[in-house]
């Protein structure tokens, strides 16, 4: 069970549909692991229901109901198979354990392209259809430490496999961390296994450690 959660304000904005696309993906992936945040979002959805019920009614065109009925009849006559475009994606064995929302980000080939960042860290960029955030897998080698870095923008991290720790704690599968600009940390994977994380970064990361100066920020990691 996850021990580190998004703040309620973030869950509220998510439920209201206000969070950025990439941030929303990360929140959704956390929800996969976290019944208590799911419960919280269900409650915030109910605030949305309340707001809808209280909205000022605005007339729709007179023929709207007829158009909708026509669409429905056409559709049911078409006897379309339910969601034809949404056939279950081919199983990608290496990623089977991941939340469905993350599995859908993995190319049909079932492979992501890993790039070397540091001896302890590999990164693979994921295409999410937005460019405000860089969305990557980060794989920290077991026992490996990522150079200390701080953030020009927000950085969200969700642990997907394994565990890592930093100055503030140890994070396991499902744990959700948000670092604000200016906060630094130095993640270290546990010794028993590699640690796979989803990383969502708002702006380029600056490496601040001694070694950091010669290393490209994660954000410069591009497939190819």
């Amino acid at each position, binding site marked *: 069970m996850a021990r580190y959660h998004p703040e*309620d*304000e973030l869950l*509220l*904005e*998510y439920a*209201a*549909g*206000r969070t950025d*696309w990439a941030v*929303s*993906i990360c929140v*959704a992936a956390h*929800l*996969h692991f976290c*019944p208590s945040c*799911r*419960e*919280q*979002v*269900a*409650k915030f*959805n*109910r*605030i*949305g*229901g*309340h*707001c*809808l*019920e*209280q*909205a*000022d*009614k*605005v*007339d*729709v*065109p007179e023929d*709207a*109901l007829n*158009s*909708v*009925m026509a*669409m*429905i009849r056409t*559709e049911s006559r078409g006897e379309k198979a339910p969601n034809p475009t949404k056939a279950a994606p081919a199983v990608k064995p290496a990623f089977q354990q991941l*939340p*469905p*929302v993350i599995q*859908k*980000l993995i190319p049909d080939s079932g492979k992501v392209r890993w790039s070397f960042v540091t001896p302890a860290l590999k990164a693979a960029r994921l*295409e*999410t*259809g*937005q*460019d405000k955030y860089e969305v990557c897998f980060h794989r920290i080698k077991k026992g490996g430490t990522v150079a200390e870095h701080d953030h020009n923008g927000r950085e969200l991290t969700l642990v997907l496999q394994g565990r890592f720790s930093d100055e503030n704690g140890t994070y396991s599968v499902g744990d959700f961390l948000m670092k604000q600009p200016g906060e630094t940390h130095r993640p270290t994977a546990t010794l028993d296994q590699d640690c796979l994380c989803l990383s969502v970064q708002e702006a380029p990361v600056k490496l601040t450690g001694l070694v950091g100066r010669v290393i490209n920020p994660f954000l410069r990691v591009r497939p190819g």
Partner: protein
Amino acid sequence: MAIAPGSTNIVASTTMREDEWSQLLARLATAGDEGVFARLFRHFAPLVKGFYLSNGGLTPESADELVQEVMVKVWRKAAGFDPRKSSASTWIFTIARNSRIDYLRKHASNEAATSTLESEDIWSEGTDNPPFVYLQQSLDQRDIDILLSELPQEQRECLFKVYLEGKSHADLAEELNLPLGTVKSRIRLGLSRLKSAVNL
């Protein structure tokens, strides 16, 4: 935001909702009745349109287009509606929210074209979307309505603006001419009341 008079002395203890719209939607789910659908349409279509217009980002014409899309989905997905898990208004809210997100993404840029995801993959819609298996509901819609109506005005206002006007916390701070911290703490206070009520 109007508060129903006398709402505070309602004690919601039954698991079955008395909300007639939820009952109607449940009937639609089992019977697929066009007459039932027409009643739901006349109630919810103007609400969804009003909700969209206060949300911003949509012209009245695009709001009309989206309202129709939402109502088609209401019909199509009705079988997944369970009145024990959700009220009609919350269920339709989630569909309306998701439709708006997809619409804005589709029209704003070429972003959606390169995405393998749709809003439904990210935001659970209704109650039928795995992996979002709902736990036993600890608060029903009426409890939420009552709790919200009992919040201090300033907290309620901040909460609602996030939904109704699409304000981020930072937008709100600017609009209300308050420090961001104050807005956040109002929202936080409002939320903590809702949260503590869950364990009643």
